[in-house]
């Protein structure tokens, strides 16, 4: 049996996983030992390693809700930058990803859509409200099909929940419609990616109602991939929950 008081780390990635950290604290609490297998350090320096700055370690990126609808668009812009950057990296590493030709075609389409979403928001926000985020992917292995697809599914599901939850803060019907135009495409993406992971199951649409997450909840989840420290100023004090009541 595995020794309860020994935590084995075989990959540096594991050090960044919440579960590992929890176990680590547990192990320390009972005076156990942590074993760093050679592979944990051997991985450093290649594409799979933990590289770049830690999430949230950079400068503050503050979205001020006093800017009204522009704050919602800025929030969307941060997420679209993350998605576009992620898929750009995915496409760049198709050669070693183990993704089939059909899967690559689907992901290349999604990359195009996310870049266009990003560039659209960039144009809409202009230099007054624009900014550029720095991304980081401590737990993503771009040479692993399952890591790429799993991360993509998380991003798309999060994107859907983010737009669904932020829509209530828009006061312009034009922007509300625009958010609607984008969110359903994110949902189409989510469905397609879940279908690649678990074809012919109910995974493409696991819930009767999609989630609607508050900006605070979304920021907490997206922060794991963003170096800038996400923050809100004048954040709305109320959030109207969706049917799943989990935002």
């Amino acid at each position, binding site marked *: 049996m595995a020794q309860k008081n020994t935590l084995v780390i075989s990959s540096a990635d594991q050090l960044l996983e919440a579960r590992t950290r929890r176990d680590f604290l547990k192990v320390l609490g009972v005076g156990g030992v942590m074993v760093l297998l050679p592979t944990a350090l051997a991985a450093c320096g290649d594409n799979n390693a933990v590289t770049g700055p830690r999430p949230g370690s950079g400068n503050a990126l503050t979205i001020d809700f006093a800017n009204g609808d522009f704050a919602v668009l800025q929030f969307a812009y941060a997420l679209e930058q993350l998605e576009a950057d992620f898929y750009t990296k995915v496409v760049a590493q198709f050669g070693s990803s183990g993704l089939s030709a059909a899967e690559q075609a689907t992901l290349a389409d999604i990359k*195009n859509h996310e870049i266009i979403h990003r*560039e*659209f928001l960039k144009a809409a926000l202009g230099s007054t409200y624009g900014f550029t985020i720095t991304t980081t992917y401590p737990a993503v292995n771009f040479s692993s099909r399952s890591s790429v697809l799993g991360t993509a599914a998380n991003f798309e599901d999060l994107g859907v929940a983010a737009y669904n939850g932020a829509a209530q803060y828009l006061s312009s019907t034009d922007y509300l419609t625009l958010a609607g*135009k984008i969110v*359903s495409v994110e949902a189409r993406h989510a469905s397609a990616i879940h279908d690649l992971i678990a074809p012919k199951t109910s995974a493409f*649409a696991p819930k009767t109602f*999609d989630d609607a997450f508050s900006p605070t909840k979304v920021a907490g989840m997206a922060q794991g991939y963003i170096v800038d420290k996400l923050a809100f100023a004048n954040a709305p004090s109320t959030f109207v929950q969706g049917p799943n009541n989990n935002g």
Partner: protein
Amino acid sequence: MDQKTLYDTIDPEILTRVNARQEEISKGASINSKLAAALALGSIPVALAALTKDVFAQAPSDVLDVLQFALLLEQLEAEFYDRGVAASGLIDAGDMAIFAQIKAHEDAHVTAIQALITGKGATPNAKPTFDFTAHGAVAGFNFSAGQYETFKALAQAFEDTGVRAYKGQAPRLINDKAVLTAALTIHAVEARHASEIRRLRGLKGWITGASRDDLPAFTQGIYDGEDNVMQGGVDVSSLSLTASNGGVDAATEAFDEPLTKAQVTAIVMPFIATS
């Protein structure tokens, strides 16, 4: 309100809301940004104009109308999948998990929207009698074994319509945040369904241009306008990075387009029996 004066269009229900809104404002409650800007300018007429536009969008009858309209679409979908899943030999066994899930969702959407309507003190409309041959346009379709391709084509038509229908109604819900959020969470699920069925049929999960792909001509209204590239005053087909990232096709795929209630009604009417 296009042809009438503003005064003519204000019904007592709205005036009640205006008064309620004025009370909120006098109490210093949150106000929308346009109104705040108008008040900051010290312009009462401008502030009133902003307020009037705002309350029009949140007229209770508007929200109810949207809900009854959504109910009709969900009833159409629910009956379609109920009958499809129940039909012997229609759906490929390997695809049953997909359609069982969609059926369960549409059934639950009907129940949820009925509850929202009831919660507003109104009575949900009864389900009409549907005609899934679309008055003969889908000749002979009756959920029989061997009609699976037709069933999937109709499913795609209904789901792509549903996505555009909810999107078109969202602005009318802008001041009822609970109903807006509920509608959006259904809207996204319909988009997931649409993507899955399209992919099951060998298509992309997203809509390119205004193409109905292999669907029959009578469904073209479901796709008209999907080739729009003007988004919020920005031509997304001519952004500097569009050309190297899928071009115009990707620019149209990246945005789903709304349909008006009248456009959706024209699409759905053939599926309602004339009795």
